[in-house]
């Protein structure tokens, strides 16, 4: 646990929810969560780098075990994309889905690492007092992903349908072409376009953040005594096992929503 002078439940949770920040400019916006950025980039480099190293030596003959593993992941994602996206998916959509799935899965999986042991290691080995190791519990990460995808959605809308086609869709769907319905249609589409990135990012954030909080609560229970330690450990193990499912499922959902949003941008109503 953290070497605070006075350890209370509040300080314990506060400690685990405090980012390592760096001020990069004037004002409250120009703050950088160094822990979020560095952890996520390291995870992305490790996971995608591993895939890249495997892919560089990829053979069309009998694959090695690591290549078979990567192919398993790639074919799984390719299949999912194929069922949703009806275009040339290999140009952009499928690789993007792979990136999202692998990266988000890795970031979510950090949640399973025992939080206090990681804090201890980071503090004593690297001298980092506040370091949140789960980038997806930072709403900035999930919003960054969701908004990037949102912009991609807008980009593909314009690219596939043209400005006119997109405007036509904004004004004339889903209720009808009549000029009386234009305002209603636009309002409806506006709500849809606002809700998409919100639900997309907050679903991932909420699930992983809640998981993190439960681990913290179980950790606090362990501080109450022997029975608390025993039950906290058992429940913590159970929650960690269950969390394997949540971590994978949320990464998968995030990827699937991305594919669905981009597919919708490609299809005219």
């Amino acid at each position, binding site marked *: 646990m953290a070497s605070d002078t006075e350890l209370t439940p509040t300080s314990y949770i506060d400690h685990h929810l405090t980012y390592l920040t760096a001020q990069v400019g004037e004002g409250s916006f120009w703050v950088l969560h160094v822990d979020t950025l560095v952890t996520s980039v390291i995870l992305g480099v490790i996971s995608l780098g591993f895939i890249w190293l495997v892919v560089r030596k990829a*053979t069309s003959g009998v694959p090695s075990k690591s290549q078979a593993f990567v192919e398993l992941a790639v074919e799984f994602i390719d299949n999912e994309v194929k069922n949703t996206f009806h275009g040339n998916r290999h140009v952009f959509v499928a690789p993007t889905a792979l990136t999202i799935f692998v990266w988000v899965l890795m970031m979510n999986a950090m949640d399973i690492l025992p939080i206090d042991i990681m804090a201890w290691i980071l503090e004593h080995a690297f001298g980092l007092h506040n370091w949140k190791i789960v980038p997806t519990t930072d709403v900035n990460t999930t*919003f960054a992903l969701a908004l990037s995808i949102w912009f991609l959605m807008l980009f593909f809308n314009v690219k596939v349908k043209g400005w006119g086609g997109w405007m036509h869709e904004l004004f004339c769907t889903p209720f009808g072409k009549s000029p009386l319905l234009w305002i209603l249609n636009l309002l409806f589409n506006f709500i849809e376009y606002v809700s998409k990135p919100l639900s997309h990012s907050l679903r991932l954030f909420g699930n992983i953040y809640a998981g993190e909080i439960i681990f913290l609560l179980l950790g606090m229970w362990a501080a109450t005594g022997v029975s608390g330690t025993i039950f906290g450990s058992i429940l913590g193990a159970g929650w960690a096992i269950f969390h394997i499912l949540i971590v994978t499922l949320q990464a998968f959902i995030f990827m699937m929503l991305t594919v669905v949003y981009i597919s919708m941008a490609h299809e005219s109503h």
Partner: protein
Amino acid sequence: MNINFTLISQAIAFSVFIWFTVKYVWPPLLRAIEERQKTIADGLAAGERGRHELELASQRSSDVLKEAKQRASEIILQAEKRATEVVEEAKRTAKEEGDRIIAGAKADIEHEMFSAKEALRQHVAQLAVAGAAKILRREVDAKAHADMLASIEEDLK
């Protein structure tokens, strides 16, 4: 839950990762997978073709076997027929040969008999002439009765 510059930095990291995957990760692996799929498809097709050919070959071999069996039984039948023919012919030739040998022997015997008879007759005639000559020595002039004697001799032949 404070939105700050981290969002932009994460978005940049995200786009770099996407670019990396699109450019360096996806295409080579896809190529390898597609090539392997093609190889497997070819292999399966070849296997199917091989199976088909095996079927044809076994069909052909059973046909050949059947034909060979038929030929063999025909040959055996012919051989048996030929064998009986040969035996029959051998019997016939043997019988003919035997008949010929018997006929030759009979002819020889007849001839022997005839020459023996001839010799005997000549002998008897001479004996008879000699006997008659002894009896008639005095009364018969050999010269005067030469004709008679010759005719007797002729009769005895």
